[in-house]
Every structure is written in structure tokens, then in C-alpha cells.
């Protein structure tokens, strides 16, 4: 029963576009459709929606959480979870805006934020990969303690960014495109290459899909896992720099609930929460969907509570859809 009697597929014959797409990409199409519907709703309900300014505003608003979500996508595809992203953003933003750091100038502030993010990620990664602790617990602990440390460093104050160089990031356009959006695009492009074109990315899929198989194939699963969290932390550091520019402050209240927003975007983007399958493009579409919803609600002067209900429904709907897609392919 094993071997079909049909002649084996000839490799020169290219299958159709849809047939070549894998489940996640088809789901991405669904998300594009959701986004299209949202855009239509936005355009119909508010005359201010389809303006260049507003579309730019949506992209800029997506940029900070978008960068965090890219790191989160890697972690989740690799079979983990990172609850500490919001707290790491807060810690990096505070550390980069202490007066001592600011005295070194804007480049050092940016470097500081990124190093703090990477360092916190490294701590997560070492405890999870080499300390064999559960990611949920480790990153939960990091979430609590990083925010605590941030509050302590800032002495519960909001720290103003004095460096014009950092503040200007939020107001700079390159070829008419806001720098914030360009940063997101660059991080996303680098992330996409790392995930889909390198051995690291391939191993990440393998570890998330079947850790035991990856280990028995001789892959250094622990090093790879640790690096995933460093990557996520680094993304948080970059996001913190962007947030410094956007808010012109560093604060322990920054990045509030980013972990939930990022995880939600990753999941509605078609990445399996159990790991092994997912796309970055889906995650970014997920972020855009959420941000667009908020935008439409505010443009129409609707209350925040309803907006949260809508977000919740979308998460549940997306996961139900994901389950069906899974069943179809099993």
C-alpha cells in the first residue's frame, strides 16, 4: 500500500504556486485578507483612515512592538516562550537613559540598550538551555525582576532623553519613509534571512519541531536554544532604543504588556505555540492587524474596552483556524 502506482513526480515539473505553499503561508494569505477587510472598514468608517499620514502612523506605531515580535517568533518556533520581553524593553530603556549613560552620547545609549537586552536574553538562555529550567518559569522570573530593577535604577521616575540625536530618530525620514519603519523593515529582513536561509534558522525549526530528533541528529540543541533568547533580548534592546526616540523618555513602565501583544501577534500569524512551524511575515501581519484595529477604534472615537474585546475575539478565532489547518494537514 505504500508505493503509489503513479509515476514519480518529475522534479523539473514545477507544481502550481498554491500547491507549493505550505500551511503557514496559506494562513498568511488569510491574514492578508483580514487586513484587507480591516482597511476597507477603516476607509468606510473614517475619512481620515486612508491618508498617507495615517497609514504612516499605523506603520510607525507597529514598529516597536514589531521588532519585539520578531524576536518572539524565533523563540516560539524554537519551542520556547519569552514572557520577559516587555520588562527587558523597560530595563534597557531605563539603563540607556541614566544620566551616566547619557553623558556618553547617543551612540553609547543605543549600544547600552542593546547590550542590556542581549545580556538579559543571555541570562534567560543560559538558565533555560544549560540550567534545564522551564522557559515559562525562567522568563516569568526575568519579567518580574527586570521590571523591578528598572524601577530601582530609575528611582520610579520617568527619565528624560536629553540627547537630541536619539529624539531625532523618531522624526527622521529616509526617502520619505520614517526611520522607525525602516528599522522594523531591516530587522524583519535580517530575521527572515536568519530564519530561512541559515543553518541556525533551520536548526531552530528542527528543535521546535522535534527536540529529540534534533539532538539525536547531532545538533547542539542547548547552544541553539540559548542563542534564541539572546536574539529575543537583542530585539528588545533595539525596540527600547526606538521607544526612547518615540516617547523621549526611559521608564520602568515602558513595554507594558508587550509579552502578551507579541505572543498574540505571533500566534495569529500562524506560528504554532508548540513550536516547529511559523513565519516571520505572519507575525508582522499579526502586529499590523492589532495596530490597525486600535487605529480604527480611535479614529471612530470608540472606547478602549470594546477594542480589547475585538482583539480577544481575533486571537481565539485565529487559534481555532490554526487548529483546523493542523487537522487538515495531519
Amino acid at each position: 500500500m505504500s508505493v503509489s502506482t503513479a509515476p514519480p513526480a518529475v522534479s523539473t515539473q514545477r507544481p502550481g504556486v498554491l500547491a507549493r505553499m505550505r500551511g503557514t503561508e496559506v494562513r498568511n494569505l488569510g491574514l492578508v485578507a483580514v487586513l484587507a477587510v480591516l482597511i476597507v472598514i477603516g476607509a468606510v468608517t473614517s475619512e481620515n483612515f486612508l491618508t498617507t499620514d495615517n497609514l504612516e502612523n499605523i506603520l510607525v506605531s507597529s514598529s516597536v512592538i514589531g521588532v519585539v515580535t520578531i524576536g518572539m517568533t524565533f523563540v516560539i518556533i524554537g519551542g520556547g516562550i519569552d514572557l520577559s520581553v516587555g520588562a527587558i524593553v523597560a530595563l534597557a530603556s531605563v539603563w540607556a537613559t541614566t544620566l551616566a549613560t547619557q553623558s556618553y552620547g547617543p551612540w553609547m545609549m543605543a549600544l547600552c540598550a542593546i547590550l542590556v537586552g542581549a545580556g538579559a536574553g543571555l541570562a534567560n538562555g543560559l538558565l533555560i538551555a544549560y540550567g534545564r529550567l522551564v522557559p515559562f518559569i525562567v522568563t516569568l522570573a526575568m519579567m518580574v525582576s527586570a521590571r523591578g530593577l528598572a524601577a530601582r535604577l530609575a528611582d520610579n521616575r520617568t527619565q528624560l532623553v536629553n540627547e537630541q540625536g536619539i529624539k531625532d530618530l523618531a522624526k527622521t525620514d529616509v526617502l520619505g519613509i520614517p526611520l522607525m519603519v525602516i528599522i522594523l523593515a531591516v530587522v524583519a529582513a535580517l530575521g527572515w534571512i536568519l530564519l530561512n536561509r541559515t543553518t541556525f534558522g533551520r536548526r531552530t525549526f528542527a528543535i521546535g519541531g522535534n527536540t529529540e530528533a534534533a539532538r539525536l541528529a547531532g545538533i547542539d540543541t542547548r547552544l541553539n536554544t540559548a542563542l534564541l533568547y539572546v536574539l529575543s533580548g537583542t530585539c528588545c534592546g533595539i525596540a527600547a532604543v526606538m521607544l526612547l526616540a518615540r516617547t523621549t523618555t526611559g521608564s520602568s513602565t515602558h513595554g507594558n504588556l508587550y509579552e502578551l501583544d507579541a505572543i498574540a501577534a505571533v500566534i495569529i500569524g500562524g506560528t504554532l505555540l508548540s513550536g516547529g512551524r511559523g513565519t516571520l511575515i505572519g507575525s508582522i501581519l499579526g502586529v499590523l492587524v492589532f495596530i490597525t484595529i486600535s487605529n480604527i477604534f480611535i479614529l471612530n472615537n470608540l472606547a478602549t474596552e470594546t477594542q480589547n474585546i475585538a482583539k480577544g475575539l481575533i486571537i481565539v478565532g485565529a487559534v481555532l483556524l490554526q487548529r483546523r489547518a493542523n487537522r487538515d494537514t495531519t
Partner: protein
Amino acid sequence: MDDGVLLRMRGIVKQFPGVRALDGVDLDVAAGQVHCLLGQNGAGKSTLIRVLAGAHRPDEGSLSWEGEDVSFSSPSSAIQRGIATIYQELDLVPGLSVADNLYLGHEKATAGFVHRSAQGAAAAAVLKKLGHSEIPVSREVGRLSAAQQQIVSLARALARDAKLIVMDEPSAVLAHDEVDNLFRVIRGLIAENVAVVYISHRLEEIRQIGDMVTVLKDGRTVATGLPAKSTPTPELVSLMTGRNVEYLFPPRTSDPFSSDAPLLQVEGLALKGAFEGVDLVVRPGEIVGLAGLVGAGRSEVLETIYGARRRTTGTVRMEGRELPAGSVRAAVKAGMGLAPEERKSQALLLGEPVARNVTLASLSRMTKTVPGWLDRRREKITAQEATAGLEVRPADVTRAVKTLSGGNQQKVVLARWLLGSTKLLLLDEPTRGVDVGARSEIYALVRRLADDGMGVLLVSSEVPEVLGLADRVLVMREGQVVHTGPADELDEHRVLDLVMEGIAR
């Protein structure tokens, strides 16, 4: 069959992606009887039990219960009819008390409030009936011994007034005298006209407690209604292992007495609780087989050599260089490759395309000039060549592995190791779940690899496979090597004698 039949299964088929786990099983169980199920690992016993318990729905076939056609949509519907199953992995809740476990799902309660004392008294009565009134009903199950947990499982079946109790290898976790006690309990059940389906690898137990025997092989019933006490052991063994198709084993080409420098040299290898004192040598171009019953420690030996388990003592040398304990990476670097027993959970990324599965262990060689940057064209071409060489069908490397048959999945795993600089292939049950036609292909393939200079260490619970394919054979029993010698000096019955000595008596 007579009219006392409680359960009748006819032509049960259960298909999983890539495997036909049950391929037409017939089974009749009468009230007041102990019906034994015999079969090798992978013969379909566990799947059959799950169908019976309502955990799997059969794809084909009919099931009648007390003369009435039924279909169980869920475990609870089977339980309501009076079928209780005691799984190999006990399904008790460790954090709940004995009494709570006994009545889990059918608590003695009013409006959601549990009558704790009534339930405790009832639980104590059931345990007393089983002769185990020493187990305190209020104790947390997690704090009981394995044997006591087994009794609690049994008590739970009784508490549900089961008419049929299915026991999957109940003796596996029990000491000798505890088994006797279990048998006493089973006899008591039989006297009350309860039916028991009993699964065990141990022939002596089947002789002691069984009434009828059904033998399963490759998902089919090969014999049913055999008297448990009087059917001769050789007949049972050949029913379990014998096959309708004679496999074609490729001719041996290597010299079993070669004095070539060994590729793999294992000395005094031991893993606590699994095996000890294992010495073995594999030379280039040689196939060495490990035979033995399940639980004899064969797979553990393989996994320990590979570093997937950390050895307690002993040395493992590849080409004279000692390997560190518990490091798969070092083993792979030294040129080992493992095709594990549980292909799906231990080797394959089922949802990923064939190509990605093939290149998994040699990704670092699939790169362009920039380290870590994948050359996807080369990856695809390499995978295509490797799979074409093994005649993996269909020949499309972009297909998800889970759509392939068992034999082709196994070839994908083999192709993975052929890409690298593998010198020693460790094969654990290489034809498990592989259909008959594809087996000969795999045998020929393994032999061809050996002819090309690769060393092979083979583990199989199918004795003819070991004897037919290997050049030299090590026979293991209860964690020790009991015989080593050239394969052509052994036959199936001699091996079975060796492995069952002291078991089949």
C-alpha cells in the same frame, strides 16, 4: 464460537499516517475467561486495546458487545458499557487520594458535593475484596509503591463494576510475589464471571493464568482461540515471529573472523538499571546484530554507545579514540549515525519536507562561503541524490515526510546519515512499521552500505532479521550478553532458547 461471547471484534482496521497499525483483527472474549494477547512489539496490541477502550475509533470493522453492535465514541462510553482498561502507563492522578482515584469521573456525590466517608468506605471495601486492605484509602496515590498503584488501578476497574477488564502488561512493574497476588485477584474476578484480556510478553504467565490465546502479528490476527495451557511454546513463538513472506536477505560478503582494525570497540559498557559488561567490536564492512527480547537492554546499548544515554562505566572507542560519555555530538563527529527505534518521535520532523529531514545532521556542510549561510540549491540537489540513491518514493524531496510510508521514512533517516561522513550506522528496529515489500529493499541497502566499507550495528526484535542480515550476532538477556558468534552458526530456535531460557522454561 459459543454464546458466552461478551465481546466480538471483526476485521478491525486502524490506519495512522504512514502505518496500518491494525489490519483486520478478529477477537472473541467470553465472560469468565482470561484471554491472552500475544505478539511482538509493534504487532498492534496497544492499538487494539485503545480501540477497545474507546480511545481510538477504528477505520473499519465491527464491534459487538453482549450481542449488540456498538461503537465507542470516547473512553467514557466504553467505561459506561463496562469495559475498564489498565494501561501500561498507569493513568492514575498522583495528587489525589486512593478513594478519589477509584471514583474519579463517577464520584459518589450529591449536587457536586462528594460524600467523602461513603466513598472512602466503598473504596476500602473494594480494596479488601482484592486482598489489599492494607492500602489506606486516604493516602495520595503518588506516594504508593508501583505494585500498590497497580492494585489501585485494578480496584478502580472493579469500582466501576466492569464486565471486561483489559490489562496491558500488568506484571511489568511487579515483583515475583506481587505477580502471584495479582493472579489470585484475577482468579477471583473470573469466578465472578468477569472477563479479562491479559497482555504479556512472558509466556510463563500466560501458561499460569490464561484460558485462551490470540496471537497478533503485523496488525493481523494470525491465530485465535488457542488453549493457553497446552499450546506448545515453539508453536506460539513461530506464530509470533513466523512470516508468510520469506524475506530475501542479501548474501554475506564479509569475513566474520576478519582481523581488520575495529571501527567501534566497546569494553565493559554498563548503564545502571539496563545492562552491564557489554563488550563488542564492529569492523568496517561488517554487520553486527544484537538479538534479545524487549527489555533485554538492546536499544539501551545502542543509545549508550551513541551518547544519547550517559554510560555508567566502560569505554567506547571509534577508530581507537575514546568518546566522552553522554555526548551525541562527539559520536556524530566521530562518524556515528543512529536510526532510532521510534522513528517519528526520535528522528523525523514529520511536517517538514524530505529534503530538510535528510540534511538535518549535515547542515553545516550545506553552506556557501559565508559560514551558516545555507546553499539551498545544493541542499536540494544533495537531498535529491541521496534519496534517489535509496529509491525513496515518491521522489519529490519537497513533500512532507509524514506523507511517506514507513519504509520510505526509514530510508529518509538512512539518507540523512549517508550524506555525512558516517562510518558506523546504528540501526534500531530498522524495519519496524515497514511493510513487507520494502523490507527486502532495506536489507539490500544495509548490505550495500556495509560492502562500501560502513560498519553496522543492528538491533531487532525479529530474530530472523538479525540472523539473516548480520554477520555476527550477540544475544542479550536481562541486560547481559549471553552469546556471541557468527550468524550462520545460529538458527531461530537456538536464539529463542537463549533469550527465553529461564522464562519459557
